[in-house]
């Protein structure tokens, strides 16, 4: 069972439907016990960084999330959910993040000047040399759907996929069992479903 963390941001309808489509049991929950019981965890998110982080803190779920990560459970942040995993964000001020993945969230507009913001639409994935298991069913160059104005920078060590939009845009990251994707797999057609399937096949690392 995959728990989708419900902390009051965004519409989780499509995400739930996409997991059901690939035959995965999905539970939208704010219940610590359910999150602790889940085989893996999805941290969704849309909207502004500081607002979402405030809501996540208020939900009281950060400790259980960190505990499950400690236990080796696969966790993936999607879109803003991925951005929350980083050290800090410069969206409307400067805000500390969850510090689970090293790096910073910065405006795309600081790096490109002749392209439209948000970066919205389908863009082609480029993998790093070692293809991450999240992409085991996906080929280099397959397109996924993005909608965002900020992106993760200074995260070279955890980068597993990028796309080109005037500058190299971080598309996905992984730090052991903590993963994140900037794009929306639940809106990325067959390619997105294949990425979710790969995630849902991941198991918690066995304790040594």
């Amino acid at each position, binding site marked *: 069972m995959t728990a989708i963390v419900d902390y009051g941001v965004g519409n989780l309808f499509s995400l739930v439907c996409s997991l059901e489509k690939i035959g995965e049991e999905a539970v939208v929950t704010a219940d610590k016990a359910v999150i602790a019981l889940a085989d893996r965890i999805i941290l969704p998110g849309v909207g502004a960084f500081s607002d979402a982080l405030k809501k996540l803190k208020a939900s009281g779920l950060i400790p259980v999330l960190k505990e499950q990560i400690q236990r080796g459970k696969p966790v993936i942040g999607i879109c803003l959910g991925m951005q929350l995993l980083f050290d800090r964000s410069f969206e409307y001020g400067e805000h500390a993040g969850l510090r689970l993945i090293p790096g910073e969230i910065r405006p795309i507009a600081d790096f490109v000047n002749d392209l439209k913001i948000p970066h919205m639409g389908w863009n082609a994935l480029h993998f790093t040399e070692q293809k991450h298991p999240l992409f085991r069913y996906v080929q280099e160059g397959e397109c996924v759907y993005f909608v965002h104005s900020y992106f993760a920078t200074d995260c070279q060590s955890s980068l597993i996929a990028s796309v080109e939009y005037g500058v190299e845009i971080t598309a996905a990251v992984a730090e052991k069992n903590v993963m994140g994707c900037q794009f929306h797999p639940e*809106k990325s057609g067959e390619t997105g479903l294949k990425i979710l399937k790969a995630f849902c096949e991941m198991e918690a690392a066995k304790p040594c």
Partner: protein
Amino acid sequence: MITKRIIPCLDVRDGKVVKGVQFAGLREVDSPVRLAEYYSQNGADELVFYDITASSDGRKLFTDILCETAKNVFIPLTVGGGINTLADFDRVLKCGADKVSVNSGAIRNPDLIAEAAKRYGDQCVVLSCDIKRVNGNFRLFAKGGREDTGLDAIEWVKRGVSNGAGEVVVNSIDTDGVKQGFDLAMLAAVCDAVSVPVIASGGAGKIEDFIALFQRLPRVDAGLAASIFHFGEVNINDLKREMIKNQIPARI
């Protein structure tokens, strides 16, 4: 590189796609759910559902069908038609729409765009405009293109974007249905005025019309059409292959 989007538009009335769709001699299909699945598996980058229902019963049916579609289609869905209030935004977003397109509703209540953008984010609000030349000026039309509002269309688009519209659909009444190509002059004027994505609509009759659109106006982000896709005059996968042959980025 971000790809140029190809978007089929389905007009839905009383739970059925208007006119239906004929695929290579197969019988007419008018189920929005089945058509949405078909398009999502055959190259469409996004789908627009346009609700042209007049009755409230029909509206309920539309919402049910939207939910059913969103359960099975995993590409972005935009909903338009009958969007007049924030409650309308809420109604369709809860059913799995990703973006909501406003047209006459924004003309009647210009605050609608700002309120919706504030609540749901700019990326969620699409401003759809029916534009026609009147005495050499681009004029905004309302009520499905039947009524001249007297407003300057370019000023209207600028105002909508500054209020928070994250995307603009330009429907040229002058080229709509003519099938001689998109209205490049009108689209260029809109692209000059705003920096958000612009979707071209009205006038496409063949693959070459899309190629001309993206080659001559690289700032246009997407091409939208209805009947030419529904009647098989243009196959989206063929179109995408032709785009790539012409160095226009497309998702295959």
